[in-house]
C-alpha cells in the first residue's frame, strides 16, 4: 500500500468562515485559473504572460478599451441576470441563449414595424417591451412544462436554443421575411433590414468613457431585482421555493406558479439583452453573429461567479466583458478563438472548487484499515 492511499482526505464543515476568506477565496480561485490557463497555453506553445498582458491591455487599460468592454459586458449582464434569477429557485434555465435570440427578433420586428416616423422614446420603449415579451414567451415553454409535467427544464430550455437559432436563421437566410433586406446588396447577400435611426439606442459620454444606454438599463434592472428578491413577498416566495419546495407548499404557496413566473422573468431578462443587442449595438437582426457570440451560455458563467447575486452580476459581467472584448480585439493566430471560453471555464471550475474550501476544512487523516475500501 502506498502512503497516499493510507492517508484519507476528508472535508469537514467549517463552524465559522474567517472573514479574510471572503476576499481571499475568489482572488485565489481567479489566480489559480490563470495558472492552470497558462499551463494550457504553454502546452499549445503560446506565451501565457504576453497573452494575459494583452487581455489586460485590450480589455481594460488601452484608451477606449473600457468603453468597448462595457459594450461586451451589456449582453452578459442581461444573460447573467437571466441565469441568476432562475437558478435561485432551482429552475436551471440554460435557455438564455435562445431567449436572447427571440428578444432580438421581437425587438427588431417592432422597430421595423414602427418605422422611421415613430418618436424615438416610443420606439425604444416598444423595443424594450417587445424584447422582454419575446424572451418571456420563449421561457414560458420550459417553465410550464416543468410546472405541469415535471419535465426536465435543463434539456427543454437548451433544445429551444437550437430551435430559436434555426428560426432566426430562417427569417434572414431562408425566407423573404419582414426582417430581411431584399433590396440593394441584400438581394444578393442575405442580411437583415437595419432599424430606423429613431429606434437606435443612445450612448452617453462620461469623459472618455462611453456608456451604452443598455448597460444603464441593465444596472437599473439588477438593482430592481435585488430589491425584488430581498424586500417583496414574491421575492420571499422565490427564496422559499428555491430552498425548500415542500415547505413552500405547506405554507400555502404555489411552487408551480412561482416557477412559471420566475421562468418568464428570467426569459424576459435575456430577451431584454436581445433588444439591447439590436437597439444599442448591431441595429439589425444578425442570426449568425448572435449564434457566434454565445452570450446566453456565458451568462451562466457570470451568474455562477456572482453566486447568483444580481448586484454581483454587474461586477462580474464587466470583468468577463473585458476578457470577451479582448478576445474580439485580439482574435488571430496569436490569440485563437476559443481561448476566452476556455479561460471562463477554468475560472468557473476554480471558483467552484474554491467555494468548497471556504465552506469546508480539509482534514488529512490516517484511515483505519477496514475503512480502506471507501
Amino acid at each position, binding site marked *: 500500500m502506498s502512503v497516499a492511499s493510507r492517508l484519507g*482526505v476528508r*472535508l469537514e464543515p467549517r463552524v465559522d468562515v474567517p472573514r479574510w476568506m471572503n476576499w481571499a477565496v475568489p482572488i485565489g480561485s481567479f489566480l489559480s485559473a490563470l495558472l492552470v490557463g497558462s499551463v*494550457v497555453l504553454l502546452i*499549445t*506553445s*503560446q506565451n501565457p504572460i504576453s497573452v494575459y498582458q494583452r487581455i489586460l491591455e485590450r480589455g481594460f487599460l488601452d484608451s477606449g478599451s473600457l468603453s468597448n468592454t462595457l459594450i461586451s459586458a451589456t449582453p452578459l449582464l442581461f444573460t447573467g441576470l437571466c441565469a441568476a434569477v432562475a437558478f435561485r429557485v432551482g429552475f*436551471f434555465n*440554460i435557455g438564455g441563449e435562445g431567449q436572447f435570440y427571440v428578444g432580438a427578433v421581437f425587438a427588431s420586428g417592432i422597430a421595423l414595424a414602427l418605422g422611421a416616423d415613430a418618436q424615438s422614446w416610443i420606439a425604444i420603449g416598444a423595443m424594450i417591451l417587445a424584447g422582454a415579451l419575446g424572451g418571456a414567451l420563449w421561457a414560458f*415553454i420550459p417553465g410550464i*412544462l416543468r410546472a405541469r*409535467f*415535471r*419535465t*426536465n427544464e*435543463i*434539456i*427543454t430550455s*437548451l*433544445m*429551444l436554443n*437550437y*430551435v430559436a437559432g*434555426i*428560426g432566426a*436563421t*430562417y427569417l434572414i437566410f*431562408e425566407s423573404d421575411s419582414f426582417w430581411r433586406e431584399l433590396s440593394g446588396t441584400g438581394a444578393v447577400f442575405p442580411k437583415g433590414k437595419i432599424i430606423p435611426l429613431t429606434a437606435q439606442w443612445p450612448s452617453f459620454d462620461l469623459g472618455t468613457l462611453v456608456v451604452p444606454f443598455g448597460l444603464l438599463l441593465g444596472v437599473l434592472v439588477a438593482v430592481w431585482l435585488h430589491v425584488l428578491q430581498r424586500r417583496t413577498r414574491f421575492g420571499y416566495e422565490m427564496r422559499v421555493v428555491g430552498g425548500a419546495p415542500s415547505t413552500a407548499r405547506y405554507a400555502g404557496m404555489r411552487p408551480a406558479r412561482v416557477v412559471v413566473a420566475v421562468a418568464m422573468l428570467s426569459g424576459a431578462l435575456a430577451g431584454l439583452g436581445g433588444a439591447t443587442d439590436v437597439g444599442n449595438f448591431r441595429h439589425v437582426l444578425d442570426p449568425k453573429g448572435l449564434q457566434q457570440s*454565445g452570450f446566453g*451560455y*456565458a451568462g*451562466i*458563467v457570470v451568474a*455562477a461567479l456572482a453566486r447568483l447575486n444580481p448586484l454581483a452580476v454587474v461586477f462580474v459581467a464587466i470583468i468577463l466583458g473585458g476578457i470577451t472584448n479582448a478576445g474580439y480585439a485580439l482574435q488571430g493566430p496569436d490569440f*485563437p*478563438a*476559443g*481561448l*476566452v*471560453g*476556455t479561460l*471562463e*471555464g*477554468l475560472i*468557473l*471550475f476554480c471558483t*467552484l*472548487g474554491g*467555494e*468548497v474550501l471556504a465552506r469546508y476544512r480539509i482534514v488529512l487523516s490516517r484511515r483505519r484499515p477496514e475503512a480502506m*475500501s*471507501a
Partner: protein
Amino acid sequence: MSVNDNLFVIILASAIFYGTPLVFAALGELLSERSGVINLGVEGMMLLGAVCSAVVAANLDGPAALVLPLALLAGMAAAALGAAIHAFLVITLRVNQIISGLALTIFAGAAGLSSYLANVWGLGRNPSLNQFGRMDLFGLKDVPVVGPILFDQTLLTYLSWLLVGLAMVYLFRTRMGLHLRAVGESPQTADSVGIPVTRYRYGHVIVGGMFAGIAGACYSLTIVPTWANGLTSGAGWIALALVIFGFWRPDLTLVGAYLFGALSSLSFTLQARGIDVPSALLNALPYLATIVVLVLVSNSRLSRRLGSPAALGRPYEREER
C-alpha cells in the same frame, strides 16, 4: 432500381449511421447516472474527444488500421480527462453536479477548449487523412433491405452494438452491475455492505467520459470529417434526454438514439431525393422531438416506477463513524 434504393431503407440505414454517436454518448451518461452522478458536460466531452481524435487522424502518418485506433484512444483519453475534472469536483468536493457539468461544457465546448485546440493545431485547413469508412460486414451489404441497414455501417456502429450488449449484461447480470445500481439507488446502504461508493462513482463517470469521447470521434472521423467548431451541434444534450427516454436502460436508449438519428438525417436524405420540405423545419425536428419525448416520458406513470436512480444528483457524504 433495387429494393435497397427505397427511401425507407435509406432512412433506416442513415438512422443507424447518424444515431451511432448518440448511442455512445447516451450509454456513457447512463453509466454515470446509474452511479448517481449527472454529467451535463457530455457535449463538452464529445467535442474534446472529437478534436483530439481528429488531430491524431489528420497528422499521424501510417496505415489506417494503426492510426484510427490511436485517434480513438486519444479522443477517449481527452474526454475522460474532462470527466475526471467533473468527478473530482462533484464526488470529492461535492460541488453542485448541475453547475459543474455546465462548467465542463462551457470550458470544453464550442466557444471553449475544443475550438481553441482546433485553431492552435490547424484543423479545418486539412481534412482528416484517415476516416472510419463503411465496412461491408460478412459481405452481406447487398442483401435486400437488411444489407444496407445492418451490414454496411462503420466499425464504430458495430462497436456500439457490442458495447450496448456488454452494458446490458454488466448492469443486469453481473455482481458489479448490481453494486453499481445499489450505489445509484442508495449509497448509504451500498457503503454499509462494503461497496466502495466513491470508487464506483469515479470509475463510471470516467468510463462515461470515454464513451462520450468515442461519440465525439464518430463526428470528426466519420460524419463531419472536415473540422468545424461545435460540430456535434447539441448531440450531447440530446444524449442526456435519451437516457431519460430510455428509462436508464441501454437497449431502450439504443432505440431512442436511432429514432433521433433518423430525424437528424431526414434533411439530407429528403434533399438528396429532391423532396422539397423547408429545411429549417427539418433541422429543428430533432430538438423539437426531444422536447415532445421528454414531456411524454415525464408525464407517464411509468417513469415513476422505472425512473431515475434514487440518489441521482446527490453527493454522498459518509458520516464519521
